[in-house]
């Protein structure tokens, strides 16, 4: 069951169309929402939260209509906004417990849960410090903690690695990956940083100009039509290349000892044919993999 079903959604800011007749099902798991700046990613998130009233179309989040059940939806969602945000004058534990209370948790449980979530987000040592004294990385973590405190079914992360140094970025991505895999939390990560998305997500939705450009699993999107394979040999071997050609293969890439071939048949059949060619020509195979595009290539093709 998709976590969000969006049908012909159009959102306008005055004359500017931010989302243009967008229809997409966002699957369960960890989904990356990709698009260049101004593509409509943040607008989509804010529309799903009920912050913006769409001009037309409809959307259901966790089975609830955004037009009539916005507060019930927000009770089951957690938002980690792109901008730095906190409530002034509070310690971390007070802030996160308060976020839990706002979501409807009883006071005692909110406080207990705030301690747990802060530990999990790596702020256990700093939980009694005023949030205003936190570094950028700590503020990113506390935004995640306040989004997680009430146990949301869907977590919306808007540029979660914004402003983080490499080590902080790694830790944040580890956290996001850990939450989204095997913990019962669906995650929608909005970002224009492809390596981040590739690292934590299983599926992506690409939007541009407010329209859907691509949707599917990352593995599917990276796959190249016709199942070409990449082979790495110990050293260049012209006989091997010739043998593959004789077997009906086409050489797509020939870079020293690295080759990309396209052969007819299923991946298993292609594998058997190539191994046979290597045996016949005495070529020593050091690497073998189904060829795939980088996510960047897939993304650029989608938005072209």
């Amino acid at each position, binding site marked *: 069951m998709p976590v969000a079903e969006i049908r012909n959604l159009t959102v306008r800011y*005055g004359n500017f169309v931010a989302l243009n007749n967008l229809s997409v099902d966002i699957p369960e798991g960890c989904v990356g929402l990709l698009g260049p700046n101004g593509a409509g990613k943040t607008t989509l998130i804010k529309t799903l939260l009920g912050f913006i009233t769409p001009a037309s179309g409809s959307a259901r989040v966790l089975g609830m209509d955004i037009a009539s059940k916005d507060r019930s939806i927000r009770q089951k969602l957690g*938002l980690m906004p792109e901008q730095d945000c*906190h409530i002034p004058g509070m310690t971390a534990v007070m802030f996160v417990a308060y976020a839990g209370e*706002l*979501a409807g948790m009883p006071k005692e449980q909110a406080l207990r849960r705030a301690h747990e*979530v802060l530990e999990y987000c790596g702020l256990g040592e700093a939980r009694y410090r005023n949030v205003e004294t936190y570094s950028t990385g700590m503020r990113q973590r506390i935004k995640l903690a306040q989004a997680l405190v009430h146990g949301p079914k869907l977590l919306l992360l808007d540029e979660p690695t914004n402003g983080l140094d490499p080590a902080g970025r790694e830790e944040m991505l580890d956290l996001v990956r850990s939450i989204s895999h095997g913990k019962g939390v669906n995650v929608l990560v909005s970002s224009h940083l492809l390596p981040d998305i590739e690292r934590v997500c299983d599926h992506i939705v690409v939007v541009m100009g407010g329209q859907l450009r691509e949707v599917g699993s990352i593995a599917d999107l990276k796959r190249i039509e016709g199942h070409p394979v990449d082979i790495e040999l110990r050293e260049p071997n012209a006989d091997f290349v010739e043998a593959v050609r004789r077997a009906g293969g086409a050489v797509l890439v020939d870079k020293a000892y690295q080759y990309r071939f396209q052969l007819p048949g299923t991946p298993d059949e292609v594998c058997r044919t190539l191994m046979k060619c290597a045996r016949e020509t005495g070529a020593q195979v050091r690497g073998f993999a189904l060829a795939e595009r980088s996510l960047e290539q897939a993304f650029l093709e989608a938005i072209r």
Partner: protein
Amino acid sequence: MSSTPIADLSYRHYDGKLEPPTFRWWSIAKMMMRLSIKKKGFWVWSSFSAYFYLILGAVFYFAETLSQQASGAAAMAGQAPDTNPVPLLFRNMIWKDQFLTAFNTSQLFLFIVALLIGAGSIAGDNRANALLVYLSKPCSKFDYLLGKWVGIFIPIWLVTLVPTLLFYGYCFLSYRQYGFVSQDPWLIVKLLAISPLPAAFHASAMVGISSFFNQARMAGATYAGIYFLTSFLTVAIGVMRVVMQQRRGASPLLDDLFYGSVDGMLQGLAKIILGTSGSPPFNAPSNVSMPPPPSPFYWVLFVGICLAFVALAWRRIRAVEVIG
């Protein structure tokens, strides 16, 4: 020794109880109050706001005690005692005017308390983007605004109400024989009615003004500007009134404009509710008194200003900046 923690620090999903998304404003109001009472200044200025009740209580106590001692001394000296059993201070005492004077003198302190707890109420949230936190939870704009309003209203109301009730209780127990209850049996109801007026006005003004700024000090300075400028005009009008009264008699227009400041309006409404023109403290003789302002007009003005401030805040509060 193992370096791993004893506690399980991995993420565990929360499947506990979640209250339905109603009355979120009360959570916001409670947190506002918690943050307010943590401020030392709140307690200091709140205590100052009750100073006139302390003075009244002390003067009344000594006046009665000294009067009794004087009667006793006169009797022992064989002189004819004063036949009137009521001490001089309490003769012709208008009790409600004492409460009115205390109410008037507390206004500046209540204003300071309002600045302390209210100036940053929305401005601080604007600076820290806290609206995204509030509105991404099952809180509506109504919950947010009402929570902020109530969070300012209740502390200021209590700061007004508690000393008033304590002083009423003291007078009720000590001075019934001097007409404290019989003079105006409904005084307690009237006092309960005037006590929320400053709180309502300051809460509305603070949420309205605070919503326009990102800095609490800017919001505070703006409200202080409005407060002192209108107070200055009222003082100027008061001087003009006295001068004109000496030359040509009272001017009804100046009488009405006298209540045109924040303090003036609150004092005027208190006079309307108490049904008095006021008199100097401690029953001092005077022929100067300002009649209450025209009742319907000032009520409409009060409610209108409060609603206007709240409406301004309502327009300013939004989860997303929409550029049309």
